[in-house]
């Protein structure tokens, strides 16, 4: 099936899916999942270089092309989406609008795939909007706040998108083509730096908005935090990656190093890229600091997505071979980790109906599989071996240190260590500690819901040990974009990943960890067996006290013996009175509202007298100007 046929029929199918789901949403969800599986197999079967044509739009051919980048991004997206589709088969029974959810999820899938397949800027835009529109319609299916979230999301996303559109047409006006590779060629030979930089930044701004980079990051909190729970996994794991893709297109597919070689800023990185890197760095700081102080677990991970978007941008922005690979690989890592985390949270919310960390605790006793999935996901998110998350962070550090970008490196380190803090907060507050009494009858979610999490975590672990399959398309991408094409970073024959300053062997490191663990286990079994302490004693028997150390006192209410409110109070206090960008943007929105009020009050509401005044004044001004 040609790519164009696939996309068109996917969009059409999504509408059909609504009516199927209307009859039975379960069948719809299962069909969705099967379509997802089919798409994965389809993606595997396509060979790079395949092209397809969607049609013509105002004299421009809408072309699709399958590249390494398309393969990689599509695969990552589909992994996330298909997992969520599987997850949704059960999870949807807690939702109000299952039919619409199925429809828009499938439509969004089509849109995302189209974005990755697009060979020209306008095709990209079309599918981009399809993805945005359909996802925007899923967001408000959540709780009350999600309505506002949808609006914020739409506006933020649109602000990036329209800048992109402007850039695309600017490029078209100047170079007479919309094809990305053609534009790249023209831009290299274009002498005017100003226009090139404008086009570059305008194109990138769509990515900035979508992947939650600094000035336009605020929608992530509200949208990811309030969207239907399972859909947050798609938002954070997949949709945000559309932004990363566009950033990659604008930085790498249009070879920014060559295009802007006349404005180097610092260690060979052009000022334009450096600007993006600075934005990425700011995002890391904001994302990390804000994530640390969140009590709403979904918002916490939403801010973490801001920070991780920053990593991706920094990695890609350096255009250093290893940094680029790191940035691109981070897309995969964050996608999987965020998807699992959000699905785990969705499971928690599914059972407990709250997403406040301070209202939860001790769920490990009830939902161990969810807990484990979450645990491995945060290990990956925090960039700790042996999960795959480490590889990309390691690569990004390599690039930063090599380029001598110490401030950026510092911020990256800050974000990385900060991520330990924030991922630990839900771990401690939701899963560990004391189980509140009201949740004593909570059960683990059904296998349909935990299976996708486990699968994704397993993939992440396997890639952490043996990353070469995923590094292969990334290397291919790097070759396509001509970033140090002779360099080889992933050396699968020696099981090595080569950095500029030292290599490492993921298999070896994993084995060492395994050996350490085995030794520890041997030591553990050598010594006397422990007695079990029943942490759930107060839940099982009315009037039983808590079994752990309480300073000699008797505590009967486990809810009281839980530390999860203001987990990092000591640190949070230090930046309580931080300036808020979100407030600034809200002020901007309010400004427009007030302007509307003003306009309405001055020009539209008044009596005929005022109308007359304006008409006459306008005549006079026109007369004054023209005469």
């Amino acid at each position, binding site marked *: 099936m040609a790519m164009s046929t696939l996309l068109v029929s996917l969009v059409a199918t999504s509408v059909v899916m609504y009516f199927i789901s209307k009859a039975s949403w379960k069948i719809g969800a299962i069909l969705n999942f099967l379509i997802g599986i089919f798409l994965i197999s389809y993606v595997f079967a396509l060979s790079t270089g395949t092209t397809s044509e969607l049609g013509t739009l105002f004299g421009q051919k809408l072309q699709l092309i399958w590249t390494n980048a398309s393969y990689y991004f599509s695969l990552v997206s589909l992994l996330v989406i298909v997992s969520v589709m599987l997850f949704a088969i059960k999870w949807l029974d807690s939702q109000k609008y299952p039919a619409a959810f199925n429809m828009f999820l499938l439509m969004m899938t089509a849109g995302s795939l189209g974005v990755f397949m697009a060979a020209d800027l306008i095709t990209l835009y079309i599918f981009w909007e399809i993805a945005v529109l359909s996802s925007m319609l899923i967001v408000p299916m959540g709780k009350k706040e999600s309505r506002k979230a949808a609006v914020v999301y739409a506006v933020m996303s649109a602000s990036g998108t329209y800048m992109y559109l402007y850039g695309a047409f600017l490029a078209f006006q100047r170079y007479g083509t919309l094809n990305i590779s053609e534009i790249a060629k023209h831009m290299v030979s274009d002498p005017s730096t100003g226009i090139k930089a404008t086009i570059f930044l305008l194109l990138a701004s769509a990515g900035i908005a979508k992947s939650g980079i600094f000035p336009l990051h605020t929608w992530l909190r509200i949208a990811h935090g309030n969207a239907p729970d399972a859909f947050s996994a798609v938002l954070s794991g997949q949709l945000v990656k559309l932004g990363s893709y566009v950033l990659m297109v604008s930085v790498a597919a249009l070879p920014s190093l060559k295009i802007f070689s006349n404005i180097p800023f610092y260690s060979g990185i052009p000022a334009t890229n450096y600007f993006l890197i600075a934005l990425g760095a700011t995002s890391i700081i904001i994302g990390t600091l804000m994530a640390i102080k969140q009590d709403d677990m979904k918002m916490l991970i939403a801010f973490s997505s801001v920070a991780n978007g920053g990593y991706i941008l920094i990695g890609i922005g350096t255009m250093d071979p290893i940094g680029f690979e790191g940035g691109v690989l981070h897309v995969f890592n964050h996608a999987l980790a965020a998807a699992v985390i959000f699905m785990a949270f969705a499971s928690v919310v599914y059972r407990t109906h709250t997403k406040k960390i301070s209202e939860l605790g001790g769920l*490990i006793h009830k939902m161990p599989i969810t807990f484990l999935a979450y645990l491995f996901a945060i*290990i990956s998110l*925090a960039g*700790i*071996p042996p999960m795959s998350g480490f590889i990309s962070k*390691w690569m990004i*550090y*390599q690039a930063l*240190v*090599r380029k*001598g970008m*110490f*401030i950026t*490196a*510092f911020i990256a380190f*800050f974000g990385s*260590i900060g991520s*330990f803090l924030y991922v630990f907060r839900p*771990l*401690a507050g939701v899963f*560990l*500690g*004391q189980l509140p009494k009201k949740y004593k009858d909570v059960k683990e979610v059904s296998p349909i819901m935990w299976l996708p999490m486990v699968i994704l975590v397993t993939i992440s672990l396997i890639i952490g040990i043996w990353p070469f399959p995923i590094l292969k398309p990334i290397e291919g991408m790097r070759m396509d974009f001509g970033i140090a094409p002779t360099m080889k970073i992933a050396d699968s024959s*020696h099981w090595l990943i080569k*950095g500029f*300053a*030292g*290599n*490492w*062997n993921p298999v*070896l*490191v994993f084995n*060492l*960890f*395994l*050996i*350490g*663990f085995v*030794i*520890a*286990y041997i*030591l*553990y079994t050598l*010594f*006397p*067996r*422990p*007695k*079990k*302490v029943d*942490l759930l004693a107060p839940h099982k028997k009315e009037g039983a006290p808590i079994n*752990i*150390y309480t300073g000699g006192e008797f505590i009967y209410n486990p809810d009281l*013996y839980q*530390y999860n409110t203001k*987990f*990092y109070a*000591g*640190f949070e206090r*230090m930046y309580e009175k931080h300036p808020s960008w979100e407030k600034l943007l809200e002020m901007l929105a309010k400004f427009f509202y007030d302007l509307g009020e003003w306009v309405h009050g001055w020009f539209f509401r008044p009596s005929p007298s005022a109308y007359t005044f304006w008409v006459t004044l306008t005549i006079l001004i026109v007369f004054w100007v023209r005469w």
Partner: protein
Amino acid sequence: MVAAYKALFNLVLGFFLVLSLEGVGRKITARVQRRIGPPWYQNFIDVFKALSKHPFSNGWVFDFGVLMALGGAMATAMIVPMGSTTWTPFPNSDNFFVIMYLFAVGALGMAMGMVGSGNPWASIGVSRALTQMLGYELPYLIVISSTIFYYKTASIHKLVELQKNGWNLLVMPLGGIIAFISLMGMLGKKPFDISTAPAEIASGPMTELSGKYLGLLHIMHVFAMFVEVSLFVDVFLGGGNLGWYLVKFIVVWVLAVLISSVLPRFRIEQMLKFYWGVPLGLAFLNALFVLLGWTL
């Protein structure tokens, strides 16, 4: 196969060296504070005693966390080069960042296991420990980054080799000092023992530990300290053959103990403000010097 023996040797040496040095450290502290103090082998006694007692387990995550902590720490200890290429078990994987992050596995395991005990004091302790990490790691990583930038390698044994003509401490003294201050925090010595703070939060993460759990975590702690001090010795003091390496190791240790024995404990914000003040600034200054080529 040789590599495996070397790695094993790392473990053995690390265990005995640090455990005895801990004893020595207690002795020194006692002397500074005009006490007699326990014998130098007291810590061996403590560990084995703890291991032999019947413990209580607070659930599977508690057990799992302890194992993960110990496993992670040992895995890291196996990679760390001891002063020279000869004593580098895995020359292809001794990348600084790999060591740093592998090290974090142990820390995470411990934190998870301890919070899994269900005791809020443990949670508070972990929260403090993580915050402290945010404090000391940043100046440290900047300094190490500038070192890597300067020597163009992140591989520890190559760094050691490149210091043949002069210690890194002498190339960038500022960096060395900052790294040492960070090392104090890493070791959890006073004034940076905020996370355990026995008198405040009932030993923090260790609140629920008993018997062999206490022993196993002590061993984990031993390996952790081994890794931390070794890294400092390798990166700043030029390593040297095994003998020299041990001497440097002991000197760094004793220095740290001496400093910590005369200082009281910071509060958590004080600690952050301290690290993000002068040390971080100086670390950036150091980085600037490196960039400009103003090294000694």
